């Protein structure tokens, strides 16, 4: 059989010679190797102080976007929940009543919207499925917690606050932008 690399060694079970049997030369070789590592730079990233550079298309904590006027974009169509392979998303739909036009963009909205972050695998399929450009994955790293309950994120944690918008331009890929150019979908803008 041809080897994939030239680094493979054929194992031979041969009797150890004298120097191998007294172990000391091998041990000396070993301690020379380890002492060299003592002076090597450590490869640790001390996380909260220094953050590792993350990819442009990093898929972190989700955000539910608002439109330019500050109304929630989500219409509780459920496509994200259907698309979700981990079945992490649940929602309850509600009808918009008079006077709520500033809060919700369309007649139907999600009264509760929950993502179980312990189930979520951060694949980004919800974002892909969303016809309203409401849900996006951001470059934020999910905060840690001691209990499991805290990891079911409701609307309070998911919807972006009106005064501090979350920038998702890096997630709006060419396909997304191309989608926007179509006239027949212009109601989605």
């Amino acid at each position, binding site marked *: 059989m041809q080897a994939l690399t030239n680094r493979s060694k054929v194992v031979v079970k041969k009797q150890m010679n004298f120097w191998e049997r007294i172990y000391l030369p091998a*041990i000396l070789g070993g301690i020379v*190797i380890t002492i060299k*590592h003592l002076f090597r730079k450590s490869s*640790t990233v*001390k996380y909260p102080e220094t953050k590792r550079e993350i990819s442009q298309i990093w898929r972190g904590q989700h955000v539910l976007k608002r439109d330019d006027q500050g109304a929630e974009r989500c219409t509780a169509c459920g496509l994200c929940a259907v698309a979700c392979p981990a079945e992490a998303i649940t929602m309850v739909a509600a009808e918009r009543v008079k006077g709520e036009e500033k809060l919700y963009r369309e007649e139907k909205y999600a009264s509760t919207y929950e993502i179980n972050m312990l189930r979520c695998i951060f694949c980004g399929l919800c974002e892909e499925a969303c016809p309203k450009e409401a849900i996006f994955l951001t470059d934020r790293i999910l905060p840690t917690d001691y209990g499991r309950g805290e990891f079911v994120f409701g609307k309070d944690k998911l919807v972006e606050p009106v005064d501090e918008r979350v920038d998702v331009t890096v997630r709006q890929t060419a396909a997304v932008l191309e989608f926007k150019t179509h006239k027949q979908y212009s109601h989605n803008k």
Partner: protein
Amino acid sequence: MIEFFIYKAILVVAIFAITLFVAAYSTYAERKVAAFLQDRVGPDRAGPFGMFQPLADGLKFMMKEEIIPDFANKFLFILGPSIAMMTALMAGVVIPWGNSLVIDGKEYFLQIADLNVGILYVFAVVSIGVYGIMIGGWASNNKFSLLGAIRASAQMISYEIAMGLSIIALIITTGTLSLREISMLQTGGVGGHWNFWNVVYQPVGFIIFLICAFAETNRTPFDLPECETELVGGYHTEYSSMKLALYLFAEYINMFISSAVISTLYFGGFNFPFMNDLGLDHNTITIVGSLFFFAKITFFIFFFMWIRWTIPRFRYDQLMNLGWKALIPLAVINIFITGLVIIIKTHYLN
């Protein structure tokens, strides 16, 4: 008389405190050395560079739930770690931590007790230390604990023979069992008059002693009594909280004491090169000598850790082969050759 007691009391308390301090910081050093040898950072959260990590560890051990299994023999279960800790602390008594300080014309030796059988005392105390492990492992009434305890005792008994034999060769050359006298014989070293450390005269003995010291303190590559992959935790499987801490702590104290004994026997103890050529007064030489002694001990503690993070554990049959078939014959040959050289030197070369 009262002065004598005060001087001894100060010395005892100081050495007790130093031993515990060094052992506590050995745990920290172990983790740091391990980290550095593996290109990591190690504990660095508690205080600057993680300096308070031993305190945090100690606090954690005290806060942990204390479990004594129902099926364990309660008295022996508690006795085990007590013996391990006590014997570990006792061995420091005969080690000369420095030469003497002269205060108001009186000479105070920096050694708690200058026994004329100092080495034998160390050996006796260390041997009792096995009982701590054996009793603890047996009293746990757990198969893994018992296996660990059996391994520990078998290993210690095997390696104590080679250790003792390697010491005999040293005693032939020095002619005394007192650790203070052995230190004093190595005085000077490199400098005005040439007087080498014992390691120059007994290199083979030193290597045998070093290897046996690793086995005696249950350190890698001979840490079979507590090898996690086979025996869960070995003799301390059933232990928790402070009792576990005592066992782990005793290991570090043993390491400290072994390093001190190795430094005393083979590396000149509190002597340092050029000590008699710099024109220093007696007390300064003593203090600098003690610092040198602690530097030597620190190096050997580092060496213990260095080895631990370099080589894997021996297999049990390899361990026994090495002890009985390699080290003991080698030690006997070493005694024979040393004796021969001494006879030739004293009878034919003078």
